[in-house]
């Protein structure tokens, strides 16, 4: 039989490393970007060449040079240093909002879906209520009511953030709930908390992780948007959205707004690449292609 196997020429497919690169190359690039930003944020005091809040009126609006790589802003502050310190706030807010919102939303949506009945109905109408408003407008309204500040803005964002996780967790739990292993756990006598947390949620975690990853970029973008509108951070804190806002009328001094914008773009794209890669990796159909 091996004779036949040798006679028939099996077309050679791309080598394993080529295939890996084609499938996960972008995700790896995205991960590299995210890791680089995380390292910069953690080691900001060492990575930043200047104090981000050091005002040097004499050296204001200097173009990029060997002294100030990305130039200086209207108060003479070093743009590169401010971007590096700004990464701290952006990443912190992004992770906090998405992780807390995701955890809260998942548990609420999962529990509602498992219990069914009026609890599920009530939760879904509540999420409808939040979905009625454009998220950034609702967050703006809440943040404005609570007062300017990073903490208040995060609370505002959390309020608009959890429903999408509730929705997704609900649909995932509903699919799993009808499978026989859940009935098997019930016949054995396990209680609802065990079944939901230990049996169902581990099977629903894949799409949730993908949503978390894709959403991190989104949260950073929304927070930057709120800061751009003057709601996020208190001046003079370095933050990307606020920096873009400060530079938006300086047409000649393009570097003031452009570099923070590129920072936002790179982080959002990085998270999107990683999220897409994760989705492919978790999807068995896409995986075998």
């Amino acid at each position, binding site marked *: *039989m091996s004779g*036949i*196997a040798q006679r*028939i020429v*099996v*077309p050679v*497919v791309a080598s*394993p490393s080529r*295939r890996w690169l084609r499938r996960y190359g972008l995700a790896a690039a995205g991960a590299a970007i995210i890791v680089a930003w995380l390292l910069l944020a953690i080691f900001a005091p060492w990575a930043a060449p200047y104090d981000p809040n050091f005002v040097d009126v004499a050296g204001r609006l200097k173009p990029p040079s060997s002294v100030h790589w990305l130039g200086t802003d209207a108060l003479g502050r070093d743009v590169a240093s401010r971007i590096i310190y700004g990464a701290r706030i952006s990443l912190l807010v992004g992770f906090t909002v998405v992780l807390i919102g995701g955890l809260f939303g998942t548990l609420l949506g999962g529990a509602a879906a498992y219990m069914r009945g009026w609890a599920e109905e009530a939760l879904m109408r509540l999420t409808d209520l939040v979905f009625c408003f454009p998220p950034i407008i609702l967050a703006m309204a809440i943040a404005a009511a609570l007062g300017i500040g990073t903490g208040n803005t995060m609370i505002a964002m959390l309020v608009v953030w959890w429903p999408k996780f509730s929705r997704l967790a609900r649909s995932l739990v509903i699919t799993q709930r009808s*499978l*026989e*292993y859940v*009935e*098997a*756990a*019930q*016949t*054995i*006598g*396990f*209680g609802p908390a065990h079944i939901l947390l230990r*049996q169902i949620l*581990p*099977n629903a975690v894949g799409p949730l992780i993908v949503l978390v990853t894709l959403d991190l970029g989104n949260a950073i973008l929304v927070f930057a948007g709120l800061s751009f509108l003057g709601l996020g951070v208190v001046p003079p804190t370095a933050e990307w959205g606020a920096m873009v806002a400060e530079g938006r009328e300086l047409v000649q001094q393009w570097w003031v707004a452009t570099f923070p914008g590129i920072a936002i773009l790179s982080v959002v794209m990085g998270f999107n690449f990683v999220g897409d890669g994760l989705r492919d990796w978790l999807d068995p159909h896409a995986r*075998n292609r």
Partner: protein
Amino acid sequence: MPATVDAPADAPLLQVRDLRTWFLTDAGPVRAVDGVSFDLHRGETLGIVGESGSGKSVCAKSIMRLLDEPARIVEGTILFRGRDLAHLDEEGIRAVRGREIAMVFQDPMTSLNPVLRIARQLVEAMTAHGRFTVAAARTRAIDLLRRMGVSAPERAVQSYPHQFSGGMRQRVMLAMGFSNEPSLLIADEPTTALDVTIQAQILDLLRELNADYGTAVILISHDLGVIANVCARVLVMYAGEVVEEGAPEDLLTDPRHPYTWALLHAAPRLDAETEDRRLVTIEGQPPDPRAWPEGCRFRARCPFAVGKCAEHPALLPVGPGRATRCWVTQDGGPLHPPGRVSAQAAPATTAHPAPLLQVEDVQKHFALPSDGLFAPHRLLRAVDGVSLQVMRGETVGLVGESGCGKSTLARLVTRLYEPTGGRIVFDGHDITHASQADIRPLRRRMQMIFQDPYASLNPRMSVGEILAGPLKLHGIVAGDAAARTRVRELLDLVGLPARNAERFPHEFSGGQRQRISIARALAVGPDFVVADEPISALDVNIQAQIINLMVDLQERLGLTYLFIAHDLAVVRHICDRIVVLYLGKVMEVARAADLFARPLHPYTRTLISAAPVPDPRVERTRRRVPMKGEPPSAISPPSGCRFRTRCPVAEAHCAAEEPPLMAMAGGQMVACHFPGRI
């Protein structure tokens, strides 16, 4: 007739030679079809039988060239009316598909487009090949549906597929298949998803169509009974090859390949009385299609293997119209019938007079969403007044078509559902409305085995965790070490190596998963086990292994079973008593042997007659009682006797008054105004 280069009239319609279809995956070629050759003549009916993974479906798809990447025909020819389909270009093959070769698939629920009306789909199938105008195709669609036995075809063509039942959709698929008068119809497991009564109707239709239109048919099935019912010639496939070929009369009564022999003896027979409940099984698993074994591919599992089997046998003739790929039967000798494992003095299992489970007039109604805001909720009466008793140590079978309420009843008994009415008493405890906390201690005594081995095990938990969970919950073992020991014992009990505790469900085959599922049910040491179609998703040989295991466990542990199945032969084989359900009501209760010897209810009679027997000689002598139509809806069941709308002997009285379940001679019980009339 198109201008085809037709060979002489007596030449075969289809000539497949050394066909090899491989899946060129990243991990190396999967040799799904690996050297298949056969001929098919005009108007002939050919059956292809084999277990899942034997390559029978891939073979059919290769003929139609319905292969997706990474599958590819790497060698061989498929000569069809003078053309080689294996090497035809895309345009050429499209002209053949649907026009000259039509195909009907297994799943009637997904093979029709849900957003298009039946008429549109049928008309498109006909106009696609330019043989009919739209108007002509439309008239023809209605005629075809009528021919396929669809009632009121003028209205039916205006419907969407979801308005049809599975059997009706399969009729539509057949209408579509025959719409262009093909010379070959390939039916891939066309009745596997259907109930046995509907299956009988569809098989009858297939036979008639073959006779009327002279269309050749290739019928693919895992069920020897289905094949024997329709086909004039049978191919048995194993490990990507044809291992035996012949007429069903010869092949099914005197198999010449050990695999055919094993298939034949593994399935319980509807027409056979057996003393022993154990079935003949073959060891092991089918080989890995990435690396077929050297020599005979069946050798490792073959009870007849000899030294010569190390050499790969060719498909050689062993008689007129017969061929087999086996060294042992080359000299023309038959394979001896299986030596029965001597029935170890089975303890008189049955007949402890105390009922372990008592179900009295139990009901379960599901509220459906109402049609409008103010419309009343409609009720689905899944179980509507069922009474039954299960004695200690006996096996009670629950049979009926899908939708008869048997699975709902299983979930009521195990209190996954709460009954709408009636009473359920388990060993003296009334559990009808017990809360989940109250019932938890009883869960140790009452367990369940599920139908789908792919859904019933949590994919994120290792086998060890799956089995240790119940032990810890009920405090059966103290500490992790004791739990691990017990897990090993449980795996050993169901015939799996103990090292499997570390592995995850996806690493196991369907049969092995079902063993794990049984081990989980036994972990808490129950005395009552509800088995909800535990073998219906498995191949014949694996079914036999699981049945043997369940019978063994019953003897060793003194278990009581409530066994739910739709396969009458299986139920007859392992059950002491059988309860026949129809639309949420009990039709008949009897001892297994009595029920098959003299069924009193017309429904039981038709069910038995619809189940195929894998022996054409027996088939010919059996009395057939055709069942009319489809089961009515459980939302608005018929008045009086629920079976009357399909009953061959119903009278006006049946619509007026519902027959009670009456006790007859010998403990048989039947709910019919005219018991035994048919």
